[in-house]
């Protein structure tokens, strides 16, 4: 099977994630969509590693996983803090800062 299909799949997943960030309202779901984007990138990295016949891309995917894990820690902390305050994780409710 040609690796190009995996690149297309990765681009599709990335776009799905990006659209999700833009249209979803719950901060947790928005955050999950960002994670989907990161994992779509991992698929690209591994596919390019395969195409180039190197290991570099696979190693990079590991780095990305670690970063994504760290991001979850920070992100959920922030979202939980604001949820405890507002009893809502909707990004539409965070509307005090404007103009």
């Amino acid at each position, binding site marked *: 099977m040609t690796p190009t299909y995996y690149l297309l799949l990765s681009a599709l997943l990335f776009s799905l994630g990006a659209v999700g960030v833009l249209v979803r309202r719950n901060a947790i779901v*928005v955050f999950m969509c960002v994670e989907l*984007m990161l994992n779509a990138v991992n698929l690209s990295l591994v596919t390019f590693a395969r195409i180039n016949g190197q290991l570099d*891309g696979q190693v*990079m995917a590991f780095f990305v996983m670690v970063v994504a894990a*760290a991001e979850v820690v920070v992100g959920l902390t922030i979202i939980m803090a604001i949820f405890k*305050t507002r009893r809502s994780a909707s990004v539409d409710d965070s509307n005090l800062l404007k103009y």
Partner: protein
Amino acid sequence: MTTFLSQVERLQAPEIDYGAVAPLLIVLGAACLSVLVEAFLPKASRWAAQVVLTFATLVAAGLVLLQYAVAEGTPKQGTITFAGTVAVDQPVIFLWATLLMLGLGSVLLIADRSVEPGGAIVADASILPGAVNGLREQLRRREMQTEVFPLTLFALGGMMVFVAANDLLTMFIALEVMSLPLYLMAGLARRRRLLSQEAAVKYFLLGAFASAFFLYGVALLYGFAGSVKLADIASATTATDRSDTLLYAGFGLLIVGLLFKASVGPFHSWTPDVYQGSPTPVTAFMAACVKVAAFGGILRVLYGAFERSSWEWNGVLWAVAIASMVIGAVLGLTQTDVKRMIAYSSVAHAGFLLIGAISLNDAGLSGTMFYLLAYGFTTIAAFGVVSLVRNADGEATHLSQWAGLAKRSPVAAGVFTFLLLALAGLPLTSGFVGKFAVFAAAIEAGLTPLVVVALVASAVAAFFYLRVIVLMYFSEPAADGPTVSVPGAFTAIAITLGAAITLVLGVYPPDVLEWAGAGVFIF
């Protein structure tokens, strides 16, 4: 299997030039130490220990860097270490020194406990704003969440790696190391907890979104060049057998991520909200240090990897620079909050800086770096003054509350006027010299139309700076207006330092300009 094992045996640990990266190791090592202080020291003694540790770290890192920069054995062009992932050359030394100095200024503001009793940082971030007596509890307690110090050090370490990163993976890791602490720091304000938490959520979600773009750009460029080293990408752009689609898409996504961090033009939407909601000292840290780091990264990527393909992309960055200047200048006019006004001013400044970055000549490099240094100190001092103007509810940031401030405190109004003039770019301030250096480089590079737009934008932006000055001097103070607190030693030092450097660089810039132009990037 045997071939794999034989490859493993041949793998050798890379050489590390410890002398060159010592400032980096000191800052990141002290950040880890600072976490331990947080874990093992009793709450009462943490603030003093953290402040001493943080200042000692920044000073030590600065001295080690100075020693390295002037030592005999230091290679003048610079050195590449950590298996080619970190480059320490003259621009990196300049940017590291800038980051350490601006970091010191910001930490002075963060550590201050005199202006707001207990400091601008919340006593305990987990106390709910809505809880019974929650707010009063926060105001009564005289300590702060001292985790802000390790977070600052980690962010600063990430910024230092970011400007020195010689491949895109290192740059991505550094981007996250610098951003993740900042997301948390944005949510630590003692007063107006809801605004602060909202700023943190907005910054985090948008920042993570932008990081994902940056990362996808890295992946596509890896597919394009077969490597993420800047030098390899540069040589791949001159080859004819590569996919242009991957190059353009990769560059576009990468640069979106970088421009977001630098709060340039159409990618600025987080900036006003986060600047307004964050605790003012943290805003100062973001406005000064993140700007330096992000533009350091942009300069490095443009010069290192994409200089030879510049005719492919410079049209896009022209448009971005114009958009940034126009958005910053025009929307700045409509602001009624001082912090938001400075945020839009920073968007306009990001546009000016981008002009310097896309000049792609030596003068552009040194001019942009000088501009970053000058702008950073002016902003830190400006936010320092903003933190002094207070009423019973904390900082009075609404512009109407600043009416007649000169009658209440001529000194604060005078300093702020000087800083606003520097932001506007009037002669005898560092802002003028920075703009002059950047615009001269841009004209040399044939970007005259951009410079014309920049001058118009500067004139428009000058209007909203002058409006604040007029308001402070020629309006009657409101009866229940804010008072200007007498700053404690830390804030006073930070403001004096920022204002003094703004003045010195405006009156006598040659030495620093020469230092900024001491060398070019190596890859």
